[in-house]
């Protein structure tokens, strides 16, 4: 079973430097948009290759100012994951050396995985009752 831990955005980097001793591997990170709570939640999944323990880190960011420090200096694997979260949710990772779009074309406007994203090419699914 994996543990869950909530961390404030300001303490993320300091906390992760401490956690690095136990959890040496970052297999996955992503984000979830909650427009009703006005937050974007980052989810980091940490793993220890020695003991196979896992830990789920959660960080809540305000939707209008989604900024957090990059974890590349702790786990280099965070590089592309952070670029993907930036690409899809527009979260700015401070200290990321190469923060640009990874999956979408470089001239794309907007962040498509935000719940309020709109696009002229998008066709809304009709609601059937």
């Amino acid at each position: 079973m994996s543990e869950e831990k909530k961390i404030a955005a300001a303490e993320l980097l300091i906390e992760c430097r401490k956690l690095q001793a136990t959890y040496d591997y970052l297999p996955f990170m992503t984000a979830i948009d909650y427009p009703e709570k006005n937050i974007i939640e980052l989810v980091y999944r940490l793993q220890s290759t020695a003991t196979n323990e896992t830990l789920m880190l959660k960080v809540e960011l305000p939707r209008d100012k989604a900024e957090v420090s990059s974890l590349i200096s702790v786990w280099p694997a965070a590089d592309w994951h952070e670029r993907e979260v930036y690409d899809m949710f527009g979260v700015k990772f401070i200290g990321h050396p190469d923060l640009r779009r990874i999956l979408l074309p470089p001239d794309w406007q907007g962040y498509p995985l935000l719940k309020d994203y709109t696009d002229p090419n998008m066709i809304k699914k009709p609601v059937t009752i």
Partner: protein
Amino acid sequence: MDVAKDLFRYLEKIPGGQLIITSTDAIFNWGRANSLWYMLFGLKCCAIEGIMAAGASRFDLDRFGMIFRASPRQSDLMIVAGTVTAKMAPRLKKLYEQMSEPRYVLAMGSCAITGGAFYYDSYSAVKGVDNLIPVDVYVPGCPPRPEAVIEGFMKLQAKIKKESILKR
């Protein structure tokens, strides 16, 4: 040998002479229809059915004279096998433009025809490859079985045999 029989239908021998005569359309179309070299170009899961499975020994596209080519310059047929995304669209168009005439396009699977499962609420899927390039044959299915794709190739061959070099 079906192919040889097919050819002799188009050729007429002058009795006692060494000449054979035929109409240019007939001989060109016969050649084109029986050497549809397709581009080794798969976008998504349809490529496994339409290009890999259909091209391998069980379904064996070689018997139609169809061999895959790794370059658009040498291929006559583009099988659009899978979802076309907004990022892939300019590349697909470029590949189509690099193919030499006569060129044909087979839209394979629901995704290539209309956008399929990604029609609604998708920010990246192109709703039908015919928005980008002209399509000759549509093969529906998700994904179509190799038999269905082969049926599509036979439909395309029938279409090619009706063409005239004056029109293209």
